[in-house]
């Protein structure tokens, strides 16, 4: 696995990160840079600060504190020296760079007629490293297939942020599109998959070409708003399976309803811990009440590792990952 994402950091920070042991470097999930405050890395549910010598520490006092120069250089590099091309991204508060890595931004907002117009004085960065984990969907995919009618069931993947929703979605798309299920070489035909990749995270497209393997029969609408993108997909690209990340707004739900009724299987993700959390959310409540989704996958991750459970639309539990059975988890 290459760590090409290191190149996006200014020299000083990059030098620190390069001193990390390689096994750690390959599991780092988030790198947080806050001007004048400790440099932080997050990995497998844990966090550490980095000292000036590149060692891990938990004490903020010993940590290296990125200065103004560092944050300016970082912003310069991630915007490709062209902040003016990022106006829409700044309004949303994040930039996705080639490779699918997403960088959340914190700074001072500039308002215009009540809405966020621009972000200035950007001093906080949360770099989320995107990684493809081929095989992440191996255990889950069998529960999402309707063997008789040879289709994929409408599925909603649920978890709090940072629990592997997008990674799972990416691998599901790959396996469904290629027809390969897990490690076994089955002779199932692949299905046409359409990905509406609003944040360029699923496929990590670079100039329209996915940098992650999302399967041979996959079309990607890169950077397209989900609601509009789903409609465009349905009308023009005739997918068998429609994939969308992080649905939540009312217009997303509307487009999803359209797709569900158009005979297209939908795979989507949403932030949440339980199915009951979602019913209360204005956008998705309706979809759930009408039992539009046939499967719910709930991801959970702790320091011990990740686990999942699969529910059907009657809230009956179909599957639990081994970790979940053993661990005394919050799900009762």
């Amino acid at each position: 696995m290459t760590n090409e994402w290191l190149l996006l950091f200014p020299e000083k920070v990059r030098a620190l990160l390069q001193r990390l042991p390689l096994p750690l470097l390959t599991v780092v999930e988030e790198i947080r840079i806050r001007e004048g405050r400790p440099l932080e890395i997050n990995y497998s549910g844990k966090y550490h600060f980095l000292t000036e010598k590149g060692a891990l520490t938990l004490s903020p006092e010993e940590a290296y504190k990125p200065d103004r120069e560092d944050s300016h250089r970082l912003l310069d590099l991630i915007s490709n020296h062209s902040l003016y091309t990022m106006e829409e991204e700044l309004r949303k508060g994040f930039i996705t760079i080639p490779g699918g890595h997403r960088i959340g931004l914190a700074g001072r907002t500039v308002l215009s007629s009540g809405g966020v117009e621009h972000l200035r004085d950007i001093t906080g960065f949360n770099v989320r490293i995107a990684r493809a984990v081929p095989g992440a969907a191996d255990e889950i995919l069998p529960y999402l297939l309707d063997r008789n009618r040879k289709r994929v069931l409408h599925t909603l993947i649920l978890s709090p942020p940072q629990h592997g929703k997008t990674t799972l979605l990416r691998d599901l798309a790959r396996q469904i599109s290629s027809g390969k299920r897990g490690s076994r070489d089955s002779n199932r035909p692949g299905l046409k998959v359409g990905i509406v990749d609003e944040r360029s995270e699923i496929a990590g497209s670079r100039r329209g070409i996915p940098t992650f393997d999302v399967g041979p029969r996959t079309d990607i609408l890169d950077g397209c708003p989900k609601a509009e993108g789903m409609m465009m997909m349905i009308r023009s690209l005739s997918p068998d399976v429609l994939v969308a990340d992080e649905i939540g707004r009312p217009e997303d739900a509307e487009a999803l309803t359209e797709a569900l009724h158009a005979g297209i299987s939908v795979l989507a993700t949403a932030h949440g811990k339980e199915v009951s959390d979602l019913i209360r959310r204005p956008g998705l409540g309706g979809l759930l009440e009408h039992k539009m989704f046939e499967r719910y996958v709930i991801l959970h991750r702790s320091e011990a590792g990740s686990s999942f459970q699969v529910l059907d639309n009657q809230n009956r539990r179909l599957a639990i990952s081994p970790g979940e059975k053993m661990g005394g988890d919050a799900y009762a």
Partner: protein
Amino acid sequence: MLKMFGAVLIVLAGTLAGLQRARQYADRPRQIRSLIAALQRLETEIKYGFTPLPDALRKIGAQARGPVQQMFVTAADEMSPPNNRSAKEAIEQAMEIHGSNTALKAPEKEIIRQLSCTLGTSDRSNQTTHITLALQQLNQEELAARDDQGKYEKMSKSLGLLLGVLIVILIF
């Protein structure tokens, strides 16, 4: 005979030096003009094309001619990986490398340097404002350069020849 040959050489050298100086006066307004044209294109690229700065500079470099073109291409290269310099550093570096090959003088270099500080660091309307300001200043410089050209171009030519002749007379 040898003396004659030496005298001719001196006069020739004086004339050539004069011509060289005259060409500088003639080149400067032309190069400022091409700089102005380049910045106008940059403005369009930023305002309507949303083109990232390195790509925009490279495009402009391909269209411009002469030393000004090389300056833009070098700046774009300095900005891209693996150099990854900031816009300001990259443009300064490019001016340092190619500055002596151009007829540009301190005032217009200073205008470009000032522009490089803000290039790429703000939203489109802000960028446009800065470029427009630089364009205005460059236009002024162009007028001044044309003035100088009118005043000194011919004079430099004759002065070179005359200086050569003067030295010859003094020696003999």
